[in-house]
């Protein structure tokens, strides 16, 4: 990553500290141990986003592989990720032990206190960037990108007066885009803090004079519900990661009348596909079928498929997952509905539910519900929600009536909920359990999954 420009005026701000690109240019956040990580597969497992950002800048072109570990991921998935990505070095926050991270040879602490060090090193390696995204089995999927695929949508213009911020974690695709944009266009960036409230984050972003800011529709709904949305005055607002409905676009435009509001479609696997700038939900139908120089899209079998140089290169660690179809397109699994001259997103073909930007695969919730002795089968689906986009709801079919006829439905619903609560993170617990007489099957004998 090249980060020239007037470096001392450009900053990366975390919740507790800030680092100027000038200091970074002249020094090392890794205590001068960069060379120890040369050619290694490095897990960047800091808690703080700032130290992760510093490590990524220092190690791109040096490490063979950079595996980005968002701090909210389940620790029990760590051994799988370490093994699949052949991790042989880990970066953690200085002053921490890294918690229960297994030792894998080389552990290098990263600090926001950048020490002077020579930086005339060779950074010419084509580093693999590995992003983790949630998989159907509950295990994360490891998605491999290159700097070329990740930065494919970023126009290399100098934008030194721009101060970016994002509600996202930069170790996820949406946040990483903003981080790379900042570095490659010579801007500054305000990162969100791990335990920081929406209000504190907005106040800090406002104090740093944020001009461009991105988040999911759910992030923005929460911002508008906070009493601090007025603390920022951005000129550009970007939504991605969830379907942007007309209501959130209109509310943002009326709260920030001077801001340009865009919503973008991107996924970890397919990369950035397009940006919609006309203030309307959905996107112009002509985007699909258009063979642009950068991104081609089609709607074969009703879902959005994307082929571009921004597509991920491959998965690692899973044999059964197919990244591209026979024509080289990534199937996003997002169903499209044509209304007039616009396409609208109509849920997921696999029934996946997006609760405030967090993915829920129905199968993992159904597996828990089906453990209850009185449940014969269940179907988990989405219910539309104006705060988080969607909520998880379960339809449950009971087995034959128990011998004692005194069973109460509300008690049974409570028991099933309790079971879910004890085994699933909160956003995956159904907001409602409906006891139904039967479920619908499709012609192939599979549960008919459709969206609310």
């Amino acid at each position: 990553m090249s980060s020239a420009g007037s470096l001392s005026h450009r900053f990366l701000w975390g919740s507790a500290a800030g680092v100027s690109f000038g200091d970074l240019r002249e020094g090392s956040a890794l205590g001068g141990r960069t060379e120890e990580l040369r050619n290694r597969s490095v897990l960047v497992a800091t808690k703080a986003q700032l130290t992760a950002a510093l490590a990524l800048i220092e190690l791109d072109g040096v490490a063979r592989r950079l595996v980005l570990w968002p701090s909210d991921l389940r620790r029990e998935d760590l051994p799988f990720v370490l093994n699949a990505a052949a991790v042989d070095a880990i970066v953690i926050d200085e002053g921490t032990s890294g918690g229960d991270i297994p030792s894998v040879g080389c552990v290098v602490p990263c600090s926001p206190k950048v020490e002077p060090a020579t930086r005339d090193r060779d950074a010419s390696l084509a580093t693999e960037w590995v992003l983790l995204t949630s998989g159907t089995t509950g295990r994360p999927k490891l998605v491999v990108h290159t700097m070329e695929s990740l930065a494919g949508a970023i126009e290399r213009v100098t934008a030194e007066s721009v101060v970016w911020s994002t509600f996202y974690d930069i170790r996820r695709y949406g946040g990483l885009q903003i981080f790379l944009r900042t570095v490659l266009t010579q801007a500054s960036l305000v990162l969100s803090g791990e335990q920081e409230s929406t209000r504190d984050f907005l106040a800090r972003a406002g104090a740093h004079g944020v001009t461009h800011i991105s988040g999911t529709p759910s992030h923005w709904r929460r911002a508008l519900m906070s009493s601090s949305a007025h603390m920022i005055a951005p000129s550009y607002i970007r939504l991605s990661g969830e379907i942007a409905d007309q209501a959130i676009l209109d509310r943002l435009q009326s709260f920030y009348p001077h801001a340009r509001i865009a919503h973008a479609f991107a996924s970890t696997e397919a990369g950035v596909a397009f940006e919609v700038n006309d203030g309307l939900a959905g996107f112009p139908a002509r985007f699909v079928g258009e063979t642009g120089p950068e991104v081609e899209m089609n709607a074969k079998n009703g879902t959005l498929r994307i082929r571009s140089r921004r597509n991920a290169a491959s998965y690692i660690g899973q044999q059964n997952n197919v990244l591209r179809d026979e024509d080289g397109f990534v199937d996003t699994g997002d169903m499209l509905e044509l209304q007039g001259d616009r396409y609208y997103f109509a849920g997921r073909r696999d029934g996946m539910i997006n609760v405030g930007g967090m993915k829920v695969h129905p199968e993992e919730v159904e597996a828990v519900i089906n453990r209850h002795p009185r449940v014969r089968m269940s179907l988990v689906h989405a219910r539309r929600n104006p705060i988080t986009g969607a909520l998880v709801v379960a339809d449950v079919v009971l087995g034959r009536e128990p011998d004692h006829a005194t069973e109460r439905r509300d008690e049974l619903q409570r028991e099933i909920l309790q079971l879910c609560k004890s085994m699933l993170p909160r956003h995956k617990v159904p907001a409602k359990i409906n006891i139904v007489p039967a479920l619908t099957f499709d012609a192939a004998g599979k549960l008919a999954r459709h969206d609310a």
Partner: protein
Amino acid sequence: MSVQSEVLTVFRLVAEEHSKTLAPLVDDLPLLDSGLDSLCFAVIVARLEDVLGVDPFSSGDDAPFPVTVGDFVKAYENATK
């Protein structure tokens, strides 16, 4: 039950289910200081739609999002009029 008490009852119920400590629910309490998070509010809106038959935040007009408990209650009072 009045709309206000209906709304506040659901607040208390959802807080309990999500093991959240609820602040005293006075009108000018900012929603984000109530002890509830976005997921709780999402569940509250869904429950109230079942109980009251309305969801004032999905109505399609660009009425501003509620910031305080009072705003939240008022949105339901207006929608059920």
